[in-house]
């Protein structure tokens, strides 16, 4: 039997038993922080001097991003848990791939390149150019690094895409699953601004919609047949499906 309610079923039977405050911090803070942080992504010209000048921040940025990627993975798992999908293979496998391969890509292309060009600063010019020749392709074109990026991003798309489908099936608001889908798509285009900002920002918006929805008072379970609105009268958001209680 279908139950009328003003929110999707979330909290019961979750794996992570978190207080509301903790859950909100874990859901909202990492994607928002990373979305803002990607705006600061250094984008030096592709020559030895520019990379040497930017090397310290290039390395520092990617070190910080490495920690943030771990926290964003926690956000995704906590959100998946809200739909009882944290243990699904799509979530575990997708986030596992994202965590390991995207982190490896971030480390190699970001920290490795920064470290290399920082170490080149006090070398003779000819050796600086030689070192630049070694690492200039690491941020994207070097075949091994490219595959790390591809597999890591695939993991993100798998987990977020699955979550968008799951949220839609669970009767989440349209905005929530659409933004989850956008988060999945935009990381395919790269992690620096604007695409990374849109991807992680979309995840933040989806989580925000989810939390706003779950903070609304629950109506469904308190409704008896006698209390139900007359046929034709709508309760709650017109876009929302009524899921089984």
């Amino acid at each position, binding site marked *: 039997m279908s139950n009328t309610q003003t929110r999707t079923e979330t909290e019961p039977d979750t794996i992570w038993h978190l207080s509301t405050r903790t859950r909100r911090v874990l859901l909202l803070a990492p994607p928002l922080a990373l979305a803002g942080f990607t705006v600061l992504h250094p984008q030096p010209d592709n020559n030895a001097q520019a990379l040497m000048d930017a090397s310290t921040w290039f390395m520092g940025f990617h070190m910080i991003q*490495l*920690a943030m*990627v*771990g926290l964003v*993975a*926690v956000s995704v798992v906590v959100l998946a848990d809200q739909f009882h999908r944290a243990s699904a293979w799509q979530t*575990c496998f997708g986030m*596992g*791939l994202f*965590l*390991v*391969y995207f*982190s*490896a*890509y971030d*480390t*190699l292309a970001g*920290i*490795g390149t920064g*470290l*290399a060009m920082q*170490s*080149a600063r006090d*070398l003779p010019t*000819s*050796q*600086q*150019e*030689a*070192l630049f*020749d*070694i*690492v200039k392709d*690491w941020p994207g074109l*070097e075949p*091994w*690094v490219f595959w*790390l990026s591809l597999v890591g991003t695939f993991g993100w798309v798998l987990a977020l895409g699955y979550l968008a489908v799951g949220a839609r099936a669970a009767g989440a608001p349209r905005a929530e699953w659409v933004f989850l889908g956008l988060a999945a798509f935009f990381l395919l285009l790269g992690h620096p601004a604007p695409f990374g900002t849109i991807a992680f920002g979309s995840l933040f918006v989806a989580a925000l919609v989810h939390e706003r929805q779950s903070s609304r008072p629950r109506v469904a379970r308190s409704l008896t047949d006698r209390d139900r609105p007359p046929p034709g009268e709508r309760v709650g958001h017109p876009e929302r499906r009524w899921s089984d209680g």
Partner: protein
Amino acid sequence: MVDRRRTWRRVVLLGVPTLYVLLGLLHPTANPELGDETDRFIGLHIAQLFLIVGLGFVIWLLVEGVTNRAATLARALIIPFVVMYTALDAILGIAWGLAAEAANGLPAAHQPGAGRLVDKLISGDPDPRGLILYWGAGLLWLAVMLSVVAALRDTAPLGALVSLSLGAAVFALGHAPPMGPAGMCLILLGIAWAEFRPSPVRRSSAAVGT
């Protein structure tokens, strides 16, 4: 259904450490220097990324259903461990191999710069960041495994707990031979022991349950 799930659980719990032992045995005892062949070294560290995901899953399965604080700590440490060990693998494995490979193709006059990069990745002199990464990842591994041991203290035999602890400590010293394969063999023994010969407490509670 339960049998199938248990089979998969054991495939992962025993398969991942076994593959890690194999990887450790194939791993060269020293990282490649300029002039050395690098393909196997790079390939092994790319493969290791899959096994790092697997190790995270092994830890998750070992504390599955355990609700004490140590189990919660072990679960919470999985993501930091995976990120840190991946960073270690990417810098001191893949980046090292790629740098050595590219440097091998440079004219002799330009190779000292590349050699300097390779040295800088691990030497710790004067830059300690490579060493911090190496020992940080190792100690994080030790912390997560000791949390697992503490979480299983009431359900696993003492021998299994000792084997897991010793294996974790030895593996924390490095995944290259001899430490890597030796440590992972001890971990494999500990997991198999805990999985197939549960402690008397667990067996008697299972008997009461029947």
